[in-house]
């Protein structure tokens, strides 16, 4: 019987329900049903896209507040001419970023190595493009900050002595972002509740968030990335889900699906060897992609 209260269509709960279904299908009589697991993986992918959208939007909103406060303080000390130059540079960055983003989207979707989620422009005509569009404004700064060769010290740098730190003012939304070491945050080394302790991290401009959503936008086209527009790492989404499942279950899943999951469980080992956020997020994102791909790779 369906309960009278419609269940909350919550992306995170859908993800954990889907993972549980996949796990249970192992012990079903008659062997794993390819069709059913394929359909479950679609739900998983859809829920993950929504979840990441929501999470990133939330982080961005919180960051926006912080940055606005920070830049307000800084602007008071600046020559007005510097601000204008910074805005112009931001425009260039934005254009470049958008182009890069669109490229990423297209490349990801049509890529020869397109994974389960990426390789279906036909059935989801609207969703990936939509996701691209909505994330465009969210991501462009990261785009402009990272994949290209480090830009020469530009007027938009508020602290020109540190080439690895870029602050960009978006004239459209009046949002300022500070990017350090090519990451919005450097934190994927951390467990959700602990601040980052990477040796190369600079003092971060953004505050810690408890519980969720550390994102290190991965801007190179990770060929295994099933959602090319979403560079954010889904560590916390998965870690929440994984907490629900036993470690034993995870190990079982891993043993079935192969090494694709090893990145998720051996996070700690990865973190130690990662020197910056990029490397870490790439691993985690790659392994996350392996979740959805490996689910159908019986």
């Amino acid at each position, binding site marked *: *019987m*369906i*309960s*009278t209260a*419609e*269940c*909350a*269509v919550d*992306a995170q709960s*859908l993800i954990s*329900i889907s993972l549980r*279904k996949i796990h249970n299908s192992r012990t079903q*009589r*008659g*062997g794993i*049903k*390819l*069709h*059913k697991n*394929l*359909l479950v993986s*679609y*739900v998983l992918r*859809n*829920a993950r896209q*929504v979840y990441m959208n929501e999470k990133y939007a939330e982080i961005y909103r919180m960051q926006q507040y912080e940055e606005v406060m920070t830049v307000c303080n800084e602007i008071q000390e600046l020559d007005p001419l510097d601000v204008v130059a910074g805005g112009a540079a931001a425009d260039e960055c934005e254009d470049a970023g958008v182009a890069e983003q669109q490229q990423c989207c297209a490349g990801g979707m049509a890529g020869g190595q*397109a*994974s*389960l989620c990426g*390789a*279906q422009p*036909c*059935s*989801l*005509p*609207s*969703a990936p493009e939509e996701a691209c569009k909505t994330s465009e404004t969210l991501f462009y700064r990261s785009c402009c900050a990272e994949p290209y060769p480090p830009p020469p010290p530009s007027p938009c740098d508020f602290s020109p002595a540190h080439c690895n730190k870029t602050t960009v003012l978006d004239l459209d939304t009046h949002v300022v972002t500070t990017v350090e070491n090519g990451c919005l945050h450097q934190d994927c080394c951390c467990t959700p509740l602990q601040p980052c302790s990477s040796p190369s991290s600079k003092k971060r401009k953004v505050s810690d968030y408890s519980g969720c959503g550390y994102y290190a936008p991965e801007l190179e086209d990770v060929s295994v990335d099933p959602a090319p527009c979403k560079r954010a790492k889904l560590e916390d989404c998965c870690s929440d889900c994984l907490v629900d499942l036993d470690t034993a279950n995870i190990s079982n899943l891993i043993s079935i699906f192969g090494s694709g999951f090893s990145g998720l469980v051996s996070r700690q080992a990865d973190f130690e060897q990662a020197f910056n956020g990029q490397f870490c997020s790439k691993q985690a994102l790659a392994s996350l992609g392996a979740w959805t*791909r*490996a689910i*159908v*790779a*019986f």
Partner: protein
Amino acid sequence: MAGAGGGGNDVQWCFSQVKGAIDDDVAEADIISTVEFNHSGELLATGDKGGRVVIFQQDTENKSQPQCRSEYNVYSTFQSHEPEFDYLKSLEIEEKINKIRWLPQKNAAQFLLSTNDKTIKLWKISERDKRPEGYNLKEEDGRCRDSTTITTLRVPVFRPMDLMVEASPRRVFANAHTYHINSISVNSDNETYLSADDLRINLWHLEITDRSFNIVDIKPANMEELTEVITAAEFHPHQCNTFVYSSSKGTIRMCDMRASALCDKHSKLFEEPEDPSNRSFFSEIISSISDVKFSHSGRYMMTRDYLSVKIWDLNMENRPVETYQVHEYLRSKLCSLYENDCIFDKFECCWNGNDSVVMTGSYNNFFRMLDRTQRRDVTLEASRESSKPRQVLKPRRVCAGGKRKKDEISVDSLDFNKKILHTAWHPQENIIAVATTNNLYIFQEKVN
């Protein structure tokens, strides 16, 4: 009887019979998994999760008088498939009968194909109503006679006996499918048939068991790139070179075996663009086609997805000619249906004899009759409460929201454990067989 099964809605349906245990406690092995009339409609076969096949035969004694109701009685029961174990993969192979398909009758015996997930079997069902008596070398009970006591010779003769129906496996078609078989379909040439699993379709000759031809293979080189599976396949009723297969993405591909040996390239692709306003987490699941059936005429085909039935004209690929909503009120409940796995239920559909009405099942033991000519539909229920002889079935209504009228049932009161997945329509008459979980209901057109 009434024409070739015409008219869904000026027909009034009456309860005729119900087969199966009355128990509310359903044994899993008794769950009916397939229902199929033979080509004349005289025989009705059911398969269950326990691997058994039960065949019912129409009582033809009173057929000449239209006002007499013909009844179906058990004709033969046999164990078709047993559970098996694949030692190499450490997998149990279920004995559940996924599909039964009758062969057209060629002689006194009847033949049917039954399949589980991995193996297809050809069964011969024959009657024996005479037995030889008067052997010289053995007694009537089979013991050998002492040859020294034989002093005369006699010719054995056939004497009538009680009718005995024997089922014997004549062919076993095994080891051709890596994935789970979902469909079998006998070709109109009466010599070949196809079997389809999630990724491949094989063509068999009915006489040859050690070889089959792979005619469709959609397995990608890298399994991680898998985006769709085959969900159903059927041969065209008249063109022996044509077959269709449906996919989990909601597309149907028609293939012509004359074009090439491997029919990976379709000759037609039937696909309706998705309505973006209906996009949800579950869009892929509800667009997956669970059944595809050609019309008897061969001009149309019908597909069933989770919420709707679509009729396609084989000459038009870009959209169906008709779409019927089966239970649109479930669209807002998809999340709950996902949680309790109901969203994965695979409903079948069927045509009536003259292709004017189609039928499919739903939840709460409801089933739907969709009249194509009159553009009307009706919801009926298969229940023990409406099981008095010749009781006319009353149309049921589901209240999607708002104020519930008298006699309506609200969506939240529907019993999602009572589902009708399998239905069959007599090829010539207005007789339908509807399978609930473990019971088979037979309804007939009301005759005055």
